[in-house]
């Protein structure tokens, strides 16, 4: 997350080595590649397909099935804000509108300067302290109270 750069087969091979002993290693490898390159580029799909002896269509099918995997780069920071029921009951909808306004991006979009992506997520297990969000994997809660300022600080705003 956060840092997207060009796909590098040598680097990919190094990352995949760690998963060579695993049965059904496609998801762990995709996680590793996305963690390093920020998204799963078409070259990455082709590379993984060859390495795991799968068709490109199969790898693409997996990438497109899972919400986590990106087929285009995200912003340098990724903010996932919870839209699920327990957070709804604690004001998630209003908080989402506030975040959209403060960050200048709509939910589900990346800022034109690629500085950040604002995405929905469905439950972070912080349902007793919501509304909640993850900023590059760091949790934030109480976004309708004191948490909003902390969260925005975490985003550097």
């Amino acid at each position: 997350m956060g840092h997207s750069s060009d796909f590098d087969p040598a680097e990919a091979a190094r990352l995949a080595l760690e998963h060579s002993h695993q049965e059904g290693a496609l998801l762990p490898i995709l996680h590793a590649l996305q963690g390093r390159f920020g998204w799963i580029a078409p070259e990455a799909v082709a590379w993984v397909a060859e390495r795991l002896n799968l068709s490109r269509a199969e790898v693409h099918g997996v990438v497109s099935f899972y919400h986590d995997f990106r087929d285009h780069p995200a912003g340098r920071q990724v903010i996932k804000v919870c839209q699920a029921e327990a957070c709804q009951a604690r004001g998630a909808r209003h908080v989402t509108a506030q975040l959209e306004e403060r960050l200048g991006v709509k939910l589900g979009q990346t800022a034109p300067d690629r500085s950040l992506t604002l995405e929905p997520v469905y439950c972070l297990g912080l349902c007793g302290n919501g509304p909640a969000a993850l900023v590059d994997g760091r949790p934030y809660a109480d976004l309708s109270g004191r948490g909003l300022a902390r969260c925005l600080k975490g985003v550097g705003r």
Partner: protein
Amino acid sequence: MKVYVSGDAAAVALGADEVAAQITAALRPRSITVVRPGSRGYLPAEPLVEVETPTGRVAYGPIFEEDVPSLLPVLLEAGPHPRRLGRLEEHPFFVGQRRLTFARVGIIDPRSWSDYRDHGGLEGLTRARALAPSEIIARINNSGLRGRGGAGFPAGLKWKTAAEAPGARKFIVCNADEGDSGTFADRMLMEGDPFLLIEGMVIAALAVGATRGYIYLRSEYPLAIATITTALATARSEGLLSASFDIELRIGAGAYVCGEETALLESIEGKRGVVRAKPPLPAHQGLFGCPTVVNNVLTLAAVPHILASGPEVYAGFGMGRSRGTMPIQLAGNLRHTGLYEVPFGLTLGQLVDEVGGGSLSGRPIRAVQVGGPLGAYFPRALFDTPFDYEAFTAKKGLIGHGGVVAFDDTVDLAAQARFAMEFCAVESCGKCTPCRIGSTRGVEVIDRIRGDQDRAANLVVLKDLCETLRFGSLCALGGFVPYPVESALQHFPEDFQRAPQAAGPGHLPGRSQR
């Protein structure tokens, strides 16, 4: 002397790391250890700080960064402070609880193997090692333990089926996908007492003759992932895990349907998380075609206690066919949110009004959704329903994984019904038509009802659609989405007779359908 600053994700999300850093820096010259346990489970008090005293731990909370300067001068003497809560064992949120599974969570250092052993860890496994596999299974059977992931299937019966299935390789798969909104018990357990889960899986492996285990943990839980990763390494170096039974951690990728056990197995195999038709049962042909036990985190974590204390102790709690305790999760618009482990049988009203303390917003509670996004919305008229699998089924609801989400009177149940249908559409694995197409139709029909287009006729269409989903879906995603929709229709019909309310939660933006 020790000071404890909660290290649970909920506490960290409120600034506990900064609080711990400040306290650590201040106390370093006095060689006082700052421990980062899991959460005690009373969430309004997070970030929670506790100090060890001769008469037990004294708690302060919530303690935010700006409270630390006023706390430090009194902390070591457990002196007065506006946020002093005293001993949590005497706090109203704790006195009614009966913690069997969560006994150590919030108490021990989740990274410390010696803490685990000193607090009764491994007692269950020691007992299990002295038993034949069939005797372990008999104990689980006699405890009455049912699967805590939602379906409530008897755990002992599942283990017996897998134990008797022929196979050179067998697997124990822990379902830690915890996708239901309003639930966080798996996360709290993994962050607060990870060795308990590992011990439960090792006992399950002994019982069924499994050669390998997997924990499938959702990507939305980065702190739990870190804690489990460390705990697995420690368990290996301490010999709890070995070549004869090791556990691999697999991370989900944001698909709700991968909590369904067969979709989960497909996902571990590296495929799209598409639900398999049953039979065959996973216990016969599961992961990589081998006999596999899939159990929820809480099911597996209940096992060590059952072995250590005896099945009759566990079975001695509860009501009807719901035996033992349930770690209930109180969430949403409640004053006292948190993890409340009690024997089955408290009424929904007791949980929401007494334990939960009513709404956080101060407005009347109008609806409570129990059991996640596929659970029914209950009105106040059903608050006398006891927390029990069968009692909830009888009222056309479910307890699922034990999440209780309260809404005040600003909720629009037509909007909630729409949300349920859209969630189903977005998260459907796409294999069966009712779930894939029916849920999308459901959204459109609800939009028409709310927009007053042929309202009466479309209400009939919606009811028919629910029937189709219930009986025609391959798994409980499509099969159970009628619960929230029909309960909204039945108990809150007035919300379907008016235009959308501005405050109601809207559509699912930015997440495309498969």
